[in-house]
């Protein structure tokens, strides 16, 4: 052993590390501005960092069909996958994202104490309907009151958790009378198979799995929405990014609008993209669309949604989260109203 072999070894290790970090992976294809459904904007050359989730809505269609890449051919679009809205909010807190998808509960937490993250809601990806439902083991109960004393699983802090607590409150019951347990979606099906849990408020693919095992749906998030407490999948964006990149957001909103229209006008094509991104069959994908309400840019910009009512819904969500210890304090109603920015949706609606 002499120092030459040592030095050579160190050099080899350094070279190997450099080689490893230099090679690029993946099958990304070049952007093609002619594939943009409208005239591509070549003036934008910024980096857009997007956090997405595997939810069957327009966002994954935009990603799979590379609409942003094609319509902003000189920009760098970075897509990062997240398992939950909580993770997306954490990434915003660290300044790692420009635009991200999160449910209405985590989005409200982002706007409230103690987080106070400088973001705004810029889009409603979907209004959650039967996509999130309360499934009960065969014969255990037929309504929420009958589930008292029983074990119900749901991912805490999610929109499903919010809907469950809301349904319990609407029935005039106390959540303490139920045995609510926190569980990630993938752990719910095995627990259900062992009959460890009596019910779950959950989304797909676990929801379909439980139904196929004899589960009965007794309430859906559509019911809680009709009772005045809707839940959403929202897009939030960093406030500085919004101020500095209006043209990116307009293109982004146009792309989302295009995807929403594709779901109703060309469901086969939309379902194919969802199948690729979410990991279901195209048949399943088409079925999944029924569990959501999708809104075009024009509808979103109106006073019923981004133009007014959503701010009130977020305020109501905050009041509710406070009683559940989800946030430290409810900010003034104006904070939630100001936390919604209908600008990109309006711009996309006018561009039509």
């Amino acid at each position: 052993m002499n120092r030459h072999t040592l030095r050579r070894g160190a050099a080899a290790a350094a070279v190997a590390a450099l080689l490893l970090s230099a090679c690029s992976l993946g099958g990304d294809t070049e952007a093609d501005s002619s594939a943009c459904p409208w005239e591509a904007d070549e003036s934008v050359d910024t980096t857009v960092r997007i956090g997405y989730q595997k939810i069957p809505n327009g966002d994954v269609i935009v990603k799979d069909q590379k609409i942003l890449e094609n319509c902003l051919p000189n920009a760098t679009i970075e897509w990062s996958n997240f398992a939950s809205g909580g993770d997306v909010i954490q990434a915003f807190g660290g300044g790692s994202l420009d635009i991200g998808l999160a449910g209405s509960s985590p989005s409200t937490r982002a706007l409230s104490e103690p987080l106070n993250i400088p973001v705004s809601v810029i889009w409603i990806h979907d209004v959650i309907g039967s996509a999130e439902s309360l499934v009960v083991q065969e014969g255990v109960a037929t309504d929420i009151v009958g589930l008292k004393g029983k074990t119900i699983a749901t991912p805490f802090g999610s929109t499903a958790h919010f809907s469950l607590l809301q349904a319990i409150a609407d029935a005039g019951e106390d959540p303490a009378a139920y045995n609510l347990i926190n569980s990630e979606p993938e752990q719910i099906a095995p627990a259900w198979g062992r009959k460890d849990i009596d019910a779950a408020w959950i989304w797909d693919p676990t929801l379909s799995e439980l139904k196929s095992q004899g589960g009965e749906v007794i309430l859906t998030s559509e019911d809680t929405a009709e009772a005045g407490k809707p839940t959403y999948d929202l897009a939030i964006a960093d406030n500085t990014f919004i101020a500095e990149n209006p043209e990116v957001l307009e293109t982004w909103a146009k792309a989302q609008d295009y995807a929403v229209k594709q779901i109703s006008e060309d469901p086969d094509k939309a379902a194919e993209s969802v199948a690729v991104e979410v990991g279901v069959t195209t048949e399943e994908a088409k079925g999944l669309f029924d569990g959501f309400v999708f809104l075009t840019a024009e509808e979103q910009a109106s006073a019923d949604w981004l133009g007014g009512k959503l701010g009130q819904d977020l305020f109501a969500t905050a009041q509710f989260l406070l009683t559940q210890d989800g946030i430290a304090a409810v900010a003034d109603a104006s904070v939630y109203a100001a936390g919604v920015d209908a600008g990109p949706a309006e711009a996309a609606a006018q561009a039509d």
Partner: protein
Amino acid sequence: MTRPTTADRARALLPHVVLLAVVLAAWTAVAASDLVSPSYLTPSPLEVWNAFVRANSDHPIGGGVDRIVRGEENYYLWEHLLASLQRIGLGLVFAVLVGIPLGLLMGVRAIGALLGPYVDFLRSIPPLAYIGFLVAWFGIYDTSKVWLLFLAAFPPIALATLNGVRGVRGDYLDAIRTLGAGRLSTVTQVVLPATLPDILSGLRVAVGFAWTTVVAAELVNGLPGIGGLAYLSGSQNKIALSVACIIVIGLTAIALDLLIRLAERRLAGWRGKD
């Protein structure tokens, strides 16, 4: 000593083949028995193999659509593995760059007494505990992941180096000093080579730590990455793919360990002979 013949080797291999066959048969039996329901939770070896092949090839998404997709999440499985190895490689390079000098420095008794408790403290914390603030400080991209792997890997290297320095024989040091060597050449000519076997065994422990930490590092924005893919496939109820990832992770860990053991034998084969 006579060289083992091919027949001898085959005979030595036989028990391993038999055991592997028994394990696979038992696995198939358990998978078929539906001991755990629903049945997708217990994929058979064949289903896992199919998931593995699918993840390494361009394949149709099925359901009557002729769209072809690339591997899983647009990366082949080996690319996921390579991405993770890349992160581990970087984490280890930094761990070596910091760990070895730190260990040598701690060989000076006063500094060792001063810094020792901190290195011990770092070593005893499960790396998953600091992923939250690492993400907040360094973002969701590779920087925070490499930091986590570095934090997992450098304490064993530093402590092993320290252990080696303490074990350097006094007469070696006396000998080189008598020959008029200064402090620097004492370290490079005697201490470092004499410590090499310990550094390499520290590196082995560090690689093991880094490899078990990579799944935690890839929980947030871990694609491409073998740990991220294992986690994602689990959360999508694709258990067969998840098991395929786990097997790849395990086999890679064994291969890495073998590699370092080989290096140990080549570079520090003299250990125990003097």
